[in-house]
């Protein structure tokens, strides 16, 4: 829970900073959506390895 909250707060802070910096909200959303793929991809690789065993 601590790690989740910490990562969440960093993500929200950086999003706010990017908005203040003048980034287009659409661009930020696209970047966030792509970042979201990372944990899914890592988990999929992990799951494949684990299920193969």
């Amino acid at each position: 829970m601590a790690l989740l909250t910490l990562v969440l707060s960093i993500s929200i802070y950086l999003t706010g900073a990017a908005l203040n910096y003048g980034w287009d909200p659409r661009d930020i959303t696209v970047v966030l959506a792509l970042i979201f793929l990372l944990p899914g991809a890592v988990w999929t690789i992990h799951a494949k390895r684990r299920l193969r065993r």
Partner: protein
Amino acid sequence: MRYLIGHGHVSALILVKSGWALSGGLMVMLAIFGEQVFHLGGQGGGSGILYSMRGIGAAIGPILAWRLLGESDREMYRSIGLGPGLFCDLPLLSGLQSSPDFGLGSSVRYAGSLRRFGSVGFQHYSAAKGGGRTATGAGFSPLKWPC
């Protein structure tokens, strides 16, 4: 920490949930999109609709996951990886949409939330395999399959 190092599958479950928080900024973007990007006429209504659609996605997601993937441990394990993939393309499409019109499409994309798709697998699996420690560690009550 020693427990996590000794139990790889438990640490993987905790890390994948924290990984989802990497895109926590999307919560901020719901309000920004509702206010600035999609024009609905009044102020604030857009973000309300987006948040509502997110709630609908959270309600429908687990049922869809159950119907489409089944409820064996193996399928649940897979669904955890599928969740981010499904969730990602919805805000991605909204970000790429050039029209400022709100429209049904925009809201449905955020319903995106089929977001609970993977979460249900996570909660079920962590409760079943990881025991109380994972559930507590990840901040979840060990919810069982909803149906």
